[in-house]
């Protein structure tokens, strides 16, 4: 069986799609495509068996990659926090505080969504908590059903973008950039996103005041100082936890991994403070963290097998040629990639996109001079929408799962539309305004957007950040500084 080398990569890409669509677990399907085409490649003489012998070392490299340890730590932190009732307390307090304002409950949901997003990082946890607590109150006091479900689902998905988010850690690893830079870069868009959401509610409260009624005064069960105290009691420990994780990482005091570990320990302390740290809670947290981490790492192992062979048949060059030949330069590339990822996100979840698709896109992006931190944040904004668009959006699923039966599915679906639009607007803002991302990163690498085409890779990009003791990071830096030389 002889297949010309030029056909191998497209065939392999097609094989990937077919193998994954069958519906067998992604990790093993990926490994199977890789090995299947690996043996065809060996038969055809494109490379020899030594290529496959590199596999165990790659798997070992995944083990020894300190950064990936952040996956179980952040997941553990999230699972503890989502079970310790923190969200419930926060929502109750903020709802009481903002409730009597027109649109107040919606603002409370957005705020709490942002705080929860920073500390737990799981969309499911935020959406479920807010859907269980805020949705019934909103319905009782006559909020428009579509608006209520939409704001909850959308606020739940902000989680993806707001640092310290696991999504950004994984993107940083795949893009070969420091986590600190991605965190710093995501701060601006996170703020704008929250502001956009609030502005939308503000607009609605003027145009359609009966959609977002102010709650009657009797709604407040506590007032004055006790209310303020309750809000603070809900907020302050969470903010300390956020600082503990995010602050130490951004200031370079801790590696992202250590930040995650301290966050998880802090989460246990926080749960203990609220008298909710129990043995079953800890056990459940450990169990689900272990299974999620194994699942995620095995997707990475599968995609490592795939990409090793894919590079062996020059697939990386094929993709790069195709993408860099797109008309419209940087903007054309970004628009194409964003539309591509937007549609992929209908079918693939975040980790699959990060491990399979990002490695294919990143070299091409670097090649035409796109700042990879900006690129990563942009993709992160984009992928948020995948949680929101009907009919596959996860946030909508979770909400459907816990919403009272008199909430119609069509309300949830239609309710999501304005928010998907706001998220896409956000992606557009990030494309047109790169400084929103880049100006938060270390000053010496700030990029003038008008000169983005001739941007030079600064080998000191990562200096002063936390990855120095990680040999992989160093190696990645070296690879990054020569983006036209694909690593074999």
């Amino acid at each position: 069986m002889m297949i010309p080398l030029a056909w191998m990569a497209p065939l392999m890409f097609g094989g990937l799609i077919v193998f994954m669509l069958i519906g067998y677990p992604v990790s093993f399907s990926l490994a199977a495509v890789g090995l299947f085409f690996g043996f065809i490649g060996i038969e055809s003489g494109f490379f020899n068996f030594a290529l496959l012998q590199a596999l165990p070392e790659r798997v070992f490299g995944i083990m020894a990659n300190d950064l990936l340890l952040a996956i179980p730590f952040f997941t553990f932190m999230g699972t503890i926090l989502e079970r310790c009732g923190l969200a419930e307390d926060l929502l109750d307090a903020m709802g009481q505080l903002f409730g009597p304002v027109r649109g107040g409950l919606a603002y409370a949901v957005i705020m709490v969504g942002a705080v929860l997003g920073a500390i737990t990082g799981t969309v499911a946890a935020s959406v479920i908590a807010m859907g269980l607590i805020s949705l019934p109150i909103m319905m009782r006091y006559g909020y428009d059903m579509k608006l209520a479900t939409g704001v909850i689902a959308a606020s739940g998905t902000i989680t993806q973008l707001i640092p310290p988010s696991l999504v950004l850690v994984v993107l940083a690893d795949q893009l070969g950039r420091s986590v600190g830079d991605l965190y710093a870069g995501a701060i601006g868009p996170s703020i704008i996103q929250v502001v956009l959401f609030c502005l939308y509610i503000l607009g609605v409260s003027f145009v359609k005041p009966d959609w977002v009624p102010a709650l009657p005064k009797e709604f407040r069960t506590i007032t004055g100082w006790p209310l303020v105290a309750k809000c603070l009691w809900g907020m302050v420990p969470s903010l300390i936890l956020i600082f503990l994780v995010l602050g130490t990482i951004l200031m370079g005091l801790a590696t992202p991994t250590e930040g995650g570990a301290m966050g998880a320990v802090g989460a246990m302390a926080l749960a203990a403070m609220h008298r909710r740290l129990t043995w079953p809670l800890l056990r459940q947290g450990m169990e689900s963290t272990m299974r999620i981490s194994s699942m995620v790492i095995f997707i990475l192992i599968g995609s490592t097998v795939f990409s090793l062979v894919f590079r062996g048949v020059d697939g990386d060059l094929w993709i790069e040629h195709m993408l860099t030949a797109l008309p419209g330069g940087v903007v054309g590339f970004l628009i194409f990639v964003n539309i591509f990822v937007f549609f992929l996100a209908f079918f693939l979840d975040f980790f699959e996109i990060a491990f399979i698709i990002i490695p294919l896109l990143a070299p091409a992006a670097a090649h035409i001079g796109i700042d990879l931190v900006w690129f990563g944040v942009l993709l992160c904004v984009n992928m948020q929408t995948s949680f929101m668009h009907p009919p596959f959006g996860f946030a909508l699923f979770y909400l459907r799962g816990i919403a009272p039966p008199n909430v119609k599915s069509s309300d949830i679906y239609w309710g999501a539309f304005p928010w998907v639009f706001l998220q896409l607007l956000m992606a557009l803002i990030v494309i047109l305004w790169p400084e929103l991302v880049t100006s938060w990163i270390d000053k010496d690498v700030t990029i003038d957007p008008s000169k983005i085409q001739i941007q030079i890779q600064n080998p000191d990009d990562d200096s002063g950040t936390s990855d120095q003791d990680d040999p992989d990071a160093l190696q990645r830096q070296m690879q990054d500084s020569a983006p036209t030389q694909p690593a074999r």
Partner: protein
Amino acid sequence: MQLLLRLSGLIDALNERLGKIADWMVLLSCLVSAGNAMLRYGFSISSNAWLEIQWYMFGVMFMLGASYTLARNEHVRVDIVYGNVSERTQLWIDLLGGILFLLPATIIIGWLSWPVFHNSYLINEGSSNAGGLLRWPIKFFLPLGFALLTLQGISEIIKRTAALRGEYKLASKYEKPLQ
């Protein structure tokens, strides 16, 4: 078939036990890592052995945990087709996927990783960091993990076959993991 199902039960029990060990690695590695960070920045104490033990535990976590995750049917799938076909078709997908995708992959990678461990063991390979740990014990988890996955894959194939013949009822149904 009954004999095979007994074998499958044994494999499941083994991997569930090992899965419990993997659970503990989450908590332990977390405490070790947080402890490392605090000692380093609080008291300028740092030890390569302790820095390495945290990723050793991480490796043990997913190499031992993956097979239990498979047993619980929690490896994520693309379910636009899978979610819309009959239960019988799902069993067939799992059965054929197990034979054509999973087993070849785990057997080949496991087989390739044995020499990696064995060579490391023969030269008693140590860490390249001062005061680091021996490398071969953690490298042992590469072939071990893939061997366990192979076993679990066989167990899943047995269960699917039995279910297709109506002799067994699967305990776990696939649900997309929360995220």
